[in-house]
Structure formats: structure tokens, C-alpha cells
């Protein structure tokens, strides 16, 4: 396995997809000479996608999780929710665009939705700080969660961040305190909370909106204590060994399910969410509705005990004499 930043494993598929697109251009109404050819190519593409995507290495999964066309929080808010009203600001310092949140309806039920937001182009990426929130973002998230608690609305959080912002401003305004405060408050918030990692689950910056009754991951998302590059730079003393670190960290959805850290893996459409965002949103919506249905029947005191226990039991150690 060699380390590459590019999704070259995706190239053969993209090539066929481009060809299909071209042929369609010449026979716009689904008629014409190229129909047979298109069908053949589609079959070929499907088989190729199946073969490639069922054998992705952990590093390749990381690249899919970071795919620039992967649906982000606001895309899911558009596709899986209705009536979204965005609410802004932490009432302390500013509005952090790296976290979005507000009121919305999920299958008719009012909820509060919060998630990290990445940008689609260079300008937006800069504006959203690459989905890396400052303390103000986490404090906005906490404000919205308290709002949800006051009005007895369940909370949905969508996790998609490389990590919390590592810069001077973040430290000045108490990044650690903001994250810690969220962990503490979420553990005892008196409404059901469901979290889904939709792309990158980067360390404390992800967990800061991820202490939930149900934690789920999209099929090709990742969740890790440190980025593979960061881990490689420290332990391998070489950031380009990220592929090895990605494997060692066990950061893919099936690995986390096996470790008992997440409850459910949400299936993505063939070839990843970016190939069919609508289908991905449908699957996400169905999983969220299931989870909220399950949780809404539970008494709040019991729910809080279960939430405490859920995180309380995580950890592997030996205790001789017991």
C-alpha cells in the first residue's frame, strides 16, 4: 500500500461515469443510437464501484469521508429535514460559521439540529474555517441545546470536522473549556440526543457535539482520537505515513461498531454519499426517525441513566483479583 493524497482508486469509476455522461449528451431523451452502449457502461461502472468500494483501505475510507462533493450538514438539512430556520450566535462573542444550527422538522416532528459545516469552494472553505469550530461555535451549539431542553425538543447533531480550530484565538477564548463544558452539559441534558458522524469525526472537536443517546456513523465516515496525519507525525515522526496510522487507529464505522462505541452504521448509496446525496439523505432520515421513535418512549430519568452508562462502560482494561 502506498500513500497517496488523491482518490486514485476512484479514477477508473470516474472515467466511465464521464463517458456515460458524454453519450447521454448525444442522446438526450433516452432514445438514440447510444442506449445499448450506455446500459453496458452503467453495468460496468456498477460492478467496478462494487468491487472497489467493498475493498477500501482505512486510508481510502478517510479520503471518501473528506470527499469535496460529499453532502455536508446544510445539504442534509435541505434534503432530510423541512422548515429549517437557522439561529445564529453564542450571545457572548460572535457567530461561528463553522457550526450551523437551528430549528427544523424531521418527518413532521420539531427538532433542534446542530452540525459542523465545511465549505464547498475556496472562499466558503475559508469562511467556514474548513469546518473547524472556535469556542464560539461550541458555545453557540450549547446555547441551542439549552433552547431545545427548555422547549422539550429532541436534538440531532451532525458531526463533520477535522477537529477544533488550533489557533491563537481559539486558545485565548478557551477552546478546552468550551469543549469540556459541552461534554458535561450534554451528559445531563433533559431531552433525547441523536448524533451522526456524516464525514470526519475529528477528535475532541467532534465529540463536543457527540455525547448522545444514540451515536451513529454514515458508512464511509471516520471517527478518531487524532487525524491519521497528526498521529503519523507524532508516532511515525513522518506525516506521510498517514495510511499506516489510519489503519492502526481503527477509525472506520465497522471498527467503531465492533468496539461498542457507536450504535448503528447508516448505509450509503453505492460508491459513497457523494454519488447519490438524495439517497444518502433518505437513509439518514430513516435512521434518525427510528432512533427518535425509540427514544421518545423512554422516561427522561431513565434516559439520562442510560446515557451515563453508555459512556461509563467504554474502555478496555484488566483488573486482577476481580
Amino acid at each position, binding site marked *: 500500500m502506498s500513500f497517496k493524497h488523491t482518490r486514485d482508486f476512484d479514477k477508473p469509476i470516474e472515467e466511465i461515469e464521464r463517458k456515460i455522461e458524454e453519450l447521454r449528451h448525444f442522446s438526450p431523451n433516452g432514445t438514440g443510437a447510444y442506449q445499448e452502449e450506455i446500459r453496458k457502461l452503467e453495468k460496468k461502472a456498477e460492478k467496478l464501484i462494487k468491487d472497489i468500494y467493498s475493498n477500501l483501505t482505512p486510508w481510502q475510507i478517510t479520503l471518501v469521508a473528506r470527499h469535496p462533493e460529499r453532502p455536508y450538514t446544510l445539504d442534509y438539512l435541505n434534503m432530510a429535514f423541512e422548515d429549517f430556520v437557522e439561529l445564529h450566535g453564542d450571545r457572548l462573542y460572535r457567530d461561528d460559521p463553522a457550526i450551523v444550527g437551528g430549528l427544523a422538522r424531521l418527518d413532521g416532528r420539531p427538532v433542534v439540529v446542530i452540525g459542523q459545516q465545511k465549505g464547498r469552494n475556496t472562499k466558503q472553505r475559508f469562511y467556514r474555517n474548513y469546518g473547524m469550530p472556535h469556542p464560539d461555535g461550541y458555545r453557540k451549539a450549547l446555547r441551542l441545546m439549552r433552547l431545545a431542553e427548555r422547549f422539550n425538543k429532541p436534538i440531532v447533531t451532525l458531526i463533520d470536522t477535522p477537529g*477544533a480550530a*488550533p*489557533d*491563537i484565538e*481559539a*486558545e*485565548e*477564548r*478557551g*477552546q*478546552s*473549556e468550551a*469543549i*469540556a*463544558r459541552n*461534554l*458535561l*452539559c450534554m*451528559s*445531563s441534558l433533559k431531552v433525547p440526543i441523536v448524533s451522526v458522524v456524516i464525514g470526519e469525526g475529528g*477528535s*475532541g472537536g467532534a*465529540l*463536543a457535539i*457527540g*455525547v448522545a443517546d444514540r451515536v451513529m456513523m454514515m458508512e464511509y465516515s471516520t*471517527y*478518531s*482520537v*487524532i487525524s491519521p496525519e*497528526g*498521529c503519523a507525525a*507524532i*508516532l*511515525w*515522526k513522518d506525516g506521510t505515513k498517514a495510511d*499506516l*496510522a489510519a489503519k*492502526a*487507529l*481503527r*477509525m472506520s464505522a465497522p471498527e*467503531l461498531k465492533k*468496539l461498542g*462505541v457507536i450504535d448503528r452504521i447508516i448505509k450509503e448509496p453505492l460508491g459513497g454519499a457523494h454519488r447519490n446525496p438524495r439517497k444518502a439523505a433518505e437513509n439518514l432520515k430513516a435512521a434518525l426517525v427510528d432512533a427518535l421513535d425509540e427514544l421518545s418512549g423512554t422516561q427522561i430519568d431513565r434516559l439520562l441513566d442510560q*446515557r*451515563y452508562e453508555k*459512556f*461509563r462502560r*467504554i*474502555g*478496555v*482494561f*484488566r*483488573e*486482577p*483479583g476481580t
Partner: protein
Amino acid sequence: MVWFKKDFFSKREKKTLKVPQGLWVKCNHCNEIIYKKEVERNLDVCPKCNYHFRISSRRRIETVLDEGSFVEYDGALEPQDALDFKDLKRYKDRLREAHKKHASKDAFVSGQGLIDGRKVMIGAFEFSFMGGSMGSVVGEKITRLVEHASAERTPLVIFTSSGGARMQEGILSLMQMAKTAAAIARLNEKGIPYISVLTDPTTGGVTASFAMLGDVIVAEPRALIGFAGPRVIQETIRQKLPEGFQRAEYLLEHGMIDMIVERKMMKSTLSLLLSLLAG
């Protein structure tokens, strides 16, 4: 003819810089060479410049508890290699090496003891054990300590010194942040005081969970405290970091901690705070 031979100088340099092993220590801050016994008598603080040396977890606990009052909890908890983690070294081998050097099984020592006759739950990090990193054992021991404090309605004091979550235990380490913070939430509900003492260095997942959640947060002078380490920040922003950035004094100025307390005043300060909060 060669007048200045290279090895003539290098030999001389070696001679003048040699410090006798064991008897003397060099201060990391003022670079003075000081008699080791003198430093130890001074609670491992440099008598010339007041630099606070990093100290072991057990020594730390000794310095604030009444003599002989410490009773250790959960000392038998042992780390496991749940991920079968291997970088340049196996995690199992790293643990084996650490166990050769330390009496403790992991990077946190906890128990109960007395501060001026008042019972407290107390814990301290061992920075020299894998950088004081928090994995499953550290997270479990902290959570149990907090739960003891809740159940027995006894105040809690934790001294931190840690690089953050332990990478070799992957996501399990990350989740210890949620686990410990949740335990603190329950302690808060009961109205039991928790004093967090941040010592050099406290960063990453430890700062971003229970360490910053103290009812009162104390720090030692000049301790490095932050979320991201200074090197990571430097690499991200590619600018020089301001003087004193992420030091205890900087955090005090920015309203992130309550006070800076010198080691020799630590016990009396904790005692006073506890008498005011729990008295």
C-alpha cells in the same frame, strides 16, 4: 601547518560542560546548576528563579496531604492493548518499558487522604508514564474517583499533567473525555466541591474534559496549559507565537483560571478553599 585542530576545541568544550551526575541539576528555566538536595528540600522548585520542576504523581500527593494519610484506590487496574496498536513500536512493548520504570500500572494515581485533617478524594497524573496520556485505565480511575467523591460526599482534588488522550487506544481514549466529564456533571449536581490543579504541561483531551471543569481552577506558575500544543498551532498559523502564550499567567489574564499558586503554598491554599467551599 595546522594551528587550530578541531579536536583540540571539542575536547575542551566537553570538559567544561560536564555536570556531575546525580548530585546537581540544571534548572530548565534559568540554566543555573543547583545542588539537587537543595531543590528537593524546596519541593522541587528552583531556589534561584522559582521554576517549578515536574514531579511524580506520588511525590505530588505527598506534598499536599497530611503525612501518612494517603490510601490508594484501584492501583491494580492494568492497561490493555485493545486495538493491537503498532506504530514504530508495539503499544504492548511501550507499556512493558513504562512498567519497568514505574511502580504504577498507568499514568494516574488516585486515592483518599487528609488535607489539614479534612478528608479528600485526590488524584495526580504521572507525566513520565507515556506523557501522562489518558487511555482506558486513566479514564476509569478518574471516573471511579469522582464517583467515590459523589457517593461519600467528599471534596475532590485532581492534579493534571498530561499530553492528552492516548493515541494507542484510539477512539476508546477519546471517549474517556465524555465519561469523566459526565461523572463531574453528577458531582456538580450533588454540590460537592471539585478543585482542579493544572500543572506543567496540561494539554489536549485532558484539558478539554475534566481539567477545565473544576469549581475552582488553580495552576502552578508558568505551567503550559492549552488545547492544541504550541507546535501544532505554530505549524497551522505559520506565525511566531506571542511571548508567554498558553502559560498559566496568560490563562489567568484571559479569564480561564482562578489563580496561580506556588507549590509551597499549594497545601494551605487547597485547605483554605475547601474550608470555605465545604465548611
